[in-house]
């Protein structure tokens, strides 16, 4: 029902639907307040027993009112109606039922309650074993869960961002606003984050007086002042959901959730906030009392009933009772009575109190023993036997400081026996999280004002900042005391402790009986405090119940700690804009535009997009293109973009000494303008990476690495430079992006390059032999570097020009090469040719193989120390039985080989014991007309000519192969030296 004289009724009228029915609310409503105003009592069904449930709270602690919002791909389940800002056209619906929310077939679970208590499926579904996977688990999974996903891609946009401040203030109640006003005076950067869509926190829910006026006047003044300050930033609709090390907090800002029109702007922003200090003004959360049938729709937290009445002018029914164990429950009675509502009774578990309202019927020292009304409370029965007809029951079990965020770094709360409440431990202070107000366990407004002044001014003084004056406020006077009467002794199977997970007092008793007495065990056995509300309203009840069973108090029982996130966060918001192709950056090679024009098929190699092959007209199958590219290269000339190989510019007077240490082989005596192949080992002696390194000057080398390892090798070299050899004069710069580098391979490669370079004679064989390099100019003065190296086994070069000339040079090489029938080739043809030549690549140097496996043991210099040198001499690496790199070809040439196949001697069964090696790389060789492979097999170099099986158990395929030399093409290297 709505109080027609409440100011909210003067605001814009909004229409919305819930479970398909149209309702009206006002701007400023939440979905929950609007549903209450429309007298919608059942909003959902409980998780396990499918009991009808209504709205229970007014904030993010809500355990019951989980609803689905939106439709189609925009549908979002498990949203708390208490946190949803109402807007015109909102579509909401209940969840977790079979049939309708008012008639749920799954409510049969409620009748079976005695059989499906805590831990029932740990015991029930033990046998027969085979039933678990096919019967039990599917049934349980179908029955479990709350809302349903749309199963469509979320079309909303999300973003992330970074914020920095000196003081992060979480919460904008009186202590948050006071903290902000004080800290802003210091000149520090202040960031106020408020979960609600309006500022003011709990003051918005109360009828408190500040400086002689309604508190809303002071809120308005404070907010106006803060908004006028340049060093203050305010984010409302934003929830800090996690605290991390080094003053980092994560927050979700809801940007467009309250707007119907789908905006191209991000719906939510995931902020990473860096702060020097955090002021935690997140207030307190009211807890319930466990008594029989305490979950009926219409039974709500007393403070929330007050919130709905004071802030939204909304309430259930006309006959309201309050059940409390503390003074705050009486305030609800006062406020509701002042609104003209009938207060049937205040039932206080305490026998003696200072009566706050003598004109309200009160029942002291009594408890509620029974409630009536399955789909909405109708009556309550007291321990004295009295029965009262009510249509709303407001329950208050006292207040718990909202210290969730202080636990995220393992801070353990401590029990405060005065206010019966957990407070943040010492860890919070160490982490520069400073609780204020109710978060500090202070619940009376006059004390909050004085304490916040004291805490914040002390912080300012401690930080040596300019001291502002106290904020002088006069306010209403409150009093608060609380008992720990939280659990009833009758009918434990119907006394709900945790409404979200349907954990009853009986479940706590069962846990105790079965030995799960520790709070950690209790939580996991009973699911107390789990799920979307993380037990915000139930934890203390559970602990009180366990304390009662153990005959001790809560401080002895202890508590579990809260983990992030404070509220549920959409996975999309965590991913933010990193979705689809934006998941990671894309790197394009310098020839990308030309390759695209030539219809290249691209492949992702790390972040790079590389041309895989270049299909021509009439080619319908990838291998037609690849075979053609290989044959044209071997017969004439081919051009391939090899820019992606890591290029590291190494300069310094000690760089040759540095290279001697990182490579297994020596580089100090490498002449200028020469290239040498180098092998790097890890510290444990396993092969790490390989590549060529060219010497351009006495103190200048260019190292190449494999594409995949380029960043890792540079990082490793920097580690060596900065940590292992800090006294060497060596400087490393990654120049991978700076140079476009193309392999020009094939018997006509020299003739093609002679058309490009400014001095063609410089590159004839006599002047520029195999493994030579030099800096030169091309195309009329463009600076270039030329390396005579060959990955294909052909007469070949790699030419490098500054990246900005990349497309132009690739195009020029192809057009100038037309007379030789030059062909661009991609990574597939590159791979085929290197396998034909027997060059190891990533499949062979895969972190499992050694120089000895690769047949490169002679490259390990014994004269000088180098990384991995000593450990490469380990016995296991050097025995006569080690697997060595070998070539393989199918005995029947028509058969295909599969990479990864295991090599087994003929006549032996394919078992682990008989496994002698594996095929690491295979390809169809157009040069030889059949499949070939590289692989590792025990004593491979002594077994040339022997036949073995290549067994692929995944494809159930066995192929007889012959062990051959790994060098299928030009084993003497005549071509590359020609």
């Amino acid at each position, binding site marked *: 029902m709505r109080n027609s004289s409440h100011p909210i009724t003067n605001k814009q009228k909004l229409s919305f639907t819930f479970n398909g029915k149209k309702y009206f609310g006002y701007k400023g409503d939440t979905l929950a307040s609007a549903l209450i105003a429309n007298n919608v009592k059942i909003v959902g069904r409980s998780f396990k027993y499918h009991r009808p449930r209504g709205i229970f709270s007014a904030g993010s602690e809500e355990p019951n009112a989980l609803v689905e919002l939106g439709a189609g791909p925009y549908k979002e389940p498990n949203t708390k109606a208490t946190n949803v800002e109402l807007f015109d056209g909102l579509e909401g619906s209940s969840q977790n039922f079979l049939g309708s929310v008012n008639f749920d077939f799954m409510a049969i679970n409620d009748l079976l309650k005695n059989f499906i208590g805590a831990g029932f499926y740990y015991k029930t579904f033990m046998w027969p074993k085979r039933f678990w996977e096919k019967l039990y688990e599917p049934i349980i999974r179908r029955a479990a869960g709350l809302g349903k996903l749309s199963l469509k891609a979320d079309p909303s946009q999300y973003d992330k961002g970074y914020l*920095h401040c000196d003081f992060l203030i979480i919460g904008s109640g009186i202590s948050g606003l006071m903290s902000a006003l004080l800290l802003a005076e210091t000149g520090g950067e202040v960031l106020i984050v408020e979960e609600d869509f309006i500022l003011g926190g709990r003051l918005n829910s109360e009828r408190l007086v500040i400086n002689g006026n309604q508190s809303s006047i002071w809120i308005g003044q404070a907010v106006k002042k803060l908004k006028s300050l340049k060093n203050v930033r305010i984010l409302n609709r934003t929830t800090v959901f996690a605290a991390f090390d080094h003053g980092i907090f994560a927050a979700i800002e809801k940007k467009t959730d309250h707007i119907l029109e789908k905006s191209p*702007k991000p719906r939510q922003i995931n902020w990473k906030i860096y702060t020097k200090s955090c002021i935690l003004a997140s207030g307190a959360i009211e807890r319930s009392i466990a008594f029989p049938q305490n979950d009926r729709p219409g039974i709500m937290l007393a403070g929330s009933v007050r919130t709905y009445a004071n802030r939204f002018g909304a309430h259930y029914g006309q006959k309201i009772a309050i059940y409390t164990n503390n003074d705050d429950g009486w305030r609800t009675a006062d406020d509701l009575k002042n609104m003209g509502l009938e207060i049937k009774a205040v039932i206080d578990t305490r026998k003696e109190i200072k009566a706050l309202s003598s004109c309200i019927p009160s029942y002291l020292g009594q408890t509620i023993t029974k409630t009536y009304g399955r789909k909405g409370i109708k009556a309550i029965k007291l321990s004295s036997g009295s029965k009262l007809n009510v249509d709303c029951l407001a329950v208050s079990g006292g207040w718990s400081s909202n210290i969730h965020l202080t636990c995220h770094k393992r801070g353990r709360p401590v029990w405060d026996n005065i206010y019966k409440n957990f407070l943040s431990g010492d860890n919070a202070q160490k982490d520069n999280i400073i609780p204020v107000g109710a978060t500090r366990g202070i619940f009376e407004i006059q004390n909050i004002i004085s304490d916040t002044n004291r805490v914040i001014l002390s912080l300012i003084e401690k930080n040596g900042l300019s001291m502002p004056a106290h904020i002088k406020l006069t306010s209403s006077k409150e009093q608060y005391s609380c008992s720990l009467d939280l659990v009833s002794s009758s009918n434990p199977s119907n006394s709900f402790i945790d409404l979200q997970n349907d954990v009853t007092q009986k479940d706590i008793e069962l846990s105790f009986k079965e030995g799960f007495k520790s709070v950690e065990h209790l939580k996991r056995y009973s699911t107390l405090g789990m799920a979307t509300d993380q037990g915000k309203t139930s934890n203390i009840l559970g602990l009180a119940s366990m304390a009662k069973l153990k005959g001790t108090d809560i401080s002895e029982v202890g508590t579990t700690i809260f983990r992030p996130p404070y509220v549920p966060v959409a996975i999309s918001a965590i991913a933010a804009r990193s979705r689809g192709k934006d998941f990671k950056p*894309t790197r394009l090679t310098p020839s990308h535009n030309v390759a695209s024009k030539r219809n290249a098929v691209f492949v992702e190699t790390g972040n790079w997009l590389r041309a895989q092959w270049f299909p021509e007209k009439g080619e319908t199958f990838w291998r037609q293109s690849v075979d053609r590219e290989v044959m044209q290269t071997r017969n004439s000339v081919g051009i391939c973009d090899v820019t992606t190989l890591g290029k590291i510019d190494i300069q310094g007077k000690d760089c040759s000494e540095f290279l001697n240490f990182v490579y297994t082989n020596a580089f100090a005596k490498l002449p200028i303008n020469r290239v040498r192949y180098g092998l790097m080992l890890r510290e444990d002696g396993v092969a790490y990476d390989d590549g060529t390194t060219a010497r351009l000057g006495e103190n200048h080398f260019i190292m190449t690495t494999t594409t995949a390892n380029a960043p890792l090798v540079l990082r490793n070299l920097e580690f060596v430079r900065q940590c292992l050899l800090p006294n060497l004069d060596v400087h490393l710069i990654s120049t991978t992006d*700076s140079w476009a580098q193309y392999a020009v391979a094939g018997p006509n490669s020299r003739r093609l390059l002679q*058309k490009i370079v400014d001095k063609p004679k410089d590159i004839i064989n006599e002047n520029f032999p195999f493994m030579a390099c030099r800096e030169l100019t091309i195309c009329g003065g463009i600076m270039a570097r030329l390396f005579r190296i060959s990955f294909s086994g052909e007469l070949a070069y790699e030419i490098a020009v500054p990246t900005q000339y990349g497309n132009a040079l690739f195009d020029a090489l192809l057009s100038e090469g037309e007379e030789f029938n030059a062909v661009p080739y991609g990574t597939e043809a590159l791979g085929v040719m290197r396998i034909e030549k027997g060059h190891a690549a990533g499949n062979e140097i895969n972190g499992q193989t050694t120089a000895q496996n690769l047949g490169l043991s002679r490259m390990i210099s014994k004269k000088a120390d180098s990384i991995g040198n000593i450990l490469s001499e380990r016995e296991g690496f050097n025995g006569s039985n080690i697997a060595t790199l070998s070539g393989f070809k199918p005995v029947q040439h028509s058969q295909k080989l599969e990479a990864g196949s295991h090599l087994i001697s003929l006549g032996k069964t394919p078992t682990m014991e008989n496994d002698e090696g594996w095929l690491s790389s295979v390809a169809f060789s157009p040069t030889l007309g059949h499949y070939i492979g590289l692989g590792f097999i025990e004593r491979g170099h002594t077994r040339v000519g022997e036949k073995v099986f290549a067994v692929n158990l995944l494809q159930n395929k066995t192929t007889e192969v012959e062990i051959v030399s790994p060098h299928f093409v030009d084993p003497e290297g005549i071509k590359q030296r020609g």
Partner: protein
Amino acid sequence: MAKIVLKREKPLNGYSKVINKIEIAEYKFDSLISLAIPLKRERKCKLNFKNSLGEPMPSIENSIISKSGILGFRIGLDLLFICNPSHSSFAKKTVPLLKQAFYITDQTGGWCGVEVDGDRVIEMLERICPLNLSQKIFAIGDVKRTIMDHLNVIIFRETEKKFILFSPSSSSGSFLKSIETSSRNI
């Protein structure tokens, strides 16, 4: 033999656009070189720098702009960058002078520069830049190396609301998309 002419391309082909009142434009430069300070030779390098560019060598994470418009910035203990927008004698005169003291690596092709300018530029950068861009912390002329959307970026503050962002040229398309997306999202 017909003369072959290689056309030089900019990573973003001279991109320029205004989104949400933020001017985004490719920062054009003729050359970009890095200078490494040889071990224990900082004093010599400082003298050389002053002689070569007429400005004192900047301290770490600071910059200079020479009279001829050359931008120099230092991003580490032993590493500086010199960005020459268009000065014609840079390659023939300045670079050989610098070579007398520094180890020089030409990185012209390795980097792409993007200028972002406008009243809402900080709002935009908040979405991708993890640094605190408050003027108290990151003043005009300051430079820092950081990560934006997984990419290595050098950020230079030219004025209160104008920044130059350098990122690797191979991923410049992705970087530009990040900037555009951030500008649209504010």
